[in-house]
């Protein structure tokens, strides 16, 4: 009888089909993982930048008493100047052309492709609050957006004070 070497056609077809199916799944997994890696990398950078900026500014608002906030007189960029009692005087400004945020000596460039939204700097005094409590809230909000994410990667600084005790803060500042 003849000696048979090799494989049957059916075997080969099934083997090749199975191999192609597995390779297809593996490639899909690879693409998904690569997408997650890149996307998470960018998000990580944005969140770290947010934490850094937030901490730099909040640190001063926590450690010192705000004496006054005014619009910067000599800056063309969106800028406010914050004076702290027994502390430094620092300018907070954003440069949309260079995508840079400056706070005192701290200068940081935004992550590529991210951009500033419309900043808010307001002071709101609530009428009717007893004099012994804080009655005024200062809010400094600088949104930072990135095209592929809906989230805001910016900062939101809140400072509370009693306007009957600290009456030096001019509430007409804005970006």
């Amino acid at each position, binding site marked *: *009888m003849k000696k048979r070497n090799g494989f049957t056609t059916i*075997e080969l077809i*099934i*083997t090749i089909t199975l191999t192609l199916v597995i390779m297809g799944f*593996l490639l899909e997994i690879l693409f998904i993982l690569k997408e997650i890696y890149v996307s998470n990398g960018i998000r990580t950078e944005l969140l770290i930048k947010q*934490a850094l900026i*937030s901490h730099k500014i909040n640190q001063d608002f926590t450690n010192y008493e705000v004496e006054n906030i005014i619009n910067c007189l000599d800056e063309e960029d969106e800028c406010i100047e914050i004076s702290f009692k027994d502390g430094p005087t620092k300018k907070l400004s954003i440069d949309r052309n260079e995508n840079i945020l400056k706070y005192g000596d701290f200068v940081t460039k935004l992550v590529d492709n991210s951009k500033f939204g419309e900043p808010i700097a307001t002071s709101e005094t*609530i009428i009717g609050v007893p004099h012994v*409590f804080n009655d005024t809230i200062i809010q400094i909000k600088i949104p930072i957006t990135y095209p592929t994410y809906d989230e805001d990667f910016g900062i939101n600084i809140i400072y*509370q004070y009693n306007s009957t005790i600290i009456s030096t803060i001019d509430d007409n500042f804005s970006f």
Partner: protein
Amino acid sequence: MKKLNNKGFMMIEILVVSTFIISVFIYLFVQFRSINHSYQISFKYNTANGLYAVNNIKNFLNYIDIINIENGVEDFYYVDISECPENFIQSTVIEYCEILFEKLNIEKVYITKQDLTDLNLHIKRSQFTPFDEDTKDFIDYIKYDYKVNGYRIVAKFNDGTFGTLKLR
């Protein structure tokens, strides 16, 4: 001479190898999912923005009389002050409270005991709690000292992040 039977050998081989490779990838996927979950948590819980926001809530509560809040927490496991309710917040500062929470992008604020053992047990045993799944996960995540007196602020923000600080 013994006749060699070649039928089915290649198929079995590919099935064995496929099973092995798929098992390896399932294992790697499970590990990756765990790492990704830890990553998501690290940027969702106690962010810099969130902690400073909770600190603002703490400053506000430290100024006002919170005896009703403390009593409420002692009676039950937590107090929800998200809407600045007048049974817990002095009427003269309710408007201030509402504006403050709005500016802080607060969705929910709870005051609990520092020791979260009882609250965690209550959440696990009770079918009906006002906490959503994300909040339950965050409360479960918080590291706390056992049998320590005092209170804690747990805040959920509109962007889905969470923050917590000791109140007293």
